[in-house]
């Protein structure tokens, strides 16, 4: 019997600027999580997520982007999983696909697509080197800048 899925778990629109968003007590009853973000920030940066608020050096990332005049690629080994650019005026849309988030027998791979018309379109792949089930997500700007009022964050569960 098919299972109706793509279940909205949480939905937040910022009424005031804040530096991070936390989704906590995430149920382990789904297969994947999808995080849809739109917004701007106080200063230009990158969208990032930290599973279980892990700020250790447990991440690897690869990206590609196209700006209309330039295409590029690079890697990062920092303290969070990355998405593309967020700016100060033009809305950036960023979607994270967090696969097998509740599995305890594998590291987690997180895909991201980000689009910002005054900047570039991006595709990222990340690995969080932990076999822990993801029970919370912290969303923040890489440089710690505030997300501006009106920025939105929606978390969905996709059935197992």
């Amino acid at each position: 019997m098919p299972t109706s899925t793509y279940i909205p778990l949480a939905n937040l629109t910022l009424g005031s600027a804040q530096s991070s968003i936390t989704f906590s007590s995430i149920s382990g009853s789904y297969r994947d999580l999808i995080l849809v973000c739109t917004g701007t920030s106080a200063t230009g940066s990158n969208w990032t997520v930290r599973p279980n608020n892990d700020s250790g050096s447990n991440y690897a990332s690869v990206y590609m982007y196209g700006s209309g005049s330039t295409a590029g690629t690079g890697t990062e080994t920092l303290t969070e999983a990355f998405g593309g650019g967020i700016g100060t005026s033009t809305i950036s849309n960023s979607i994270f696909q967090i696969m097998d988030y509740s599995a305890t027998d594998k590291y987690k791979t997180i895909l991201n697509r980000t689009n910002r018309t005054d900047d570039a379109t991006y595709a990222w792949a990340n690995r969080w080197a932990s076999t822990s089930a993801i029970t919370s997500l912290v969303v923040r700007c890489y440089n710690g800048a505030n997300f501006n009022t009106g920025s939105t964050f929606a978390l969905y569960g996709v059935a197992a």
Partner: protein
Amino acid sequence: MIKSMTRSSVLNRTDYRSMLAGNEAYSPSDFELISTTILGSAQASVTFDVSALASTYKHLQIRIAAQSTTTNDNVDMYFNNDTGTNYSWHSLYATGSAIGADYSVNRAGIPESPAVLASSYNTFTACVIDILDPFSTSKYKTSRTFNGRAVSAGYYVSLSSGNWRSTSAITSIKLQGRSNNINTGSRFSIYGLKG
């Protein structure tokens, strides 16, 4: 379907004509999980039988987390077990040190479904494949794929599109390791989107 009865709906003696009185209306999603396969042992391929889905769904999505067994490999996607050179494919990809494009026409199968690493790298490639209008009998079939993994031994991210030159409705989807088996723990889920 009644999810629960509220106290007020019982005690206020209000005449409700709806069986959902007092309950939030249940609105089923149009995006449905059809099946999930998690490999308990390494195997050469995974096949989804979608022959009975044409009357229910407009599009399909396959979500994958997979790795190979012994060496890096590719998982190729075939429709209706057609192994002829009836497919085309384009890709935009990056490795962290190089960005490029690739394509092939008149090939057997659609590659990067996903591009997988050997199990020794302890990294599963994530992959989302959208198959648009799979049950149409008036058009060739188009797929789009986003896949990637991040580990120093094999950074890779790609966006690709595939084409199957057949107007037959898709009845089966086979995802097959090109050179090796697909490893234990790899997960393949298929979803239907109503239209």
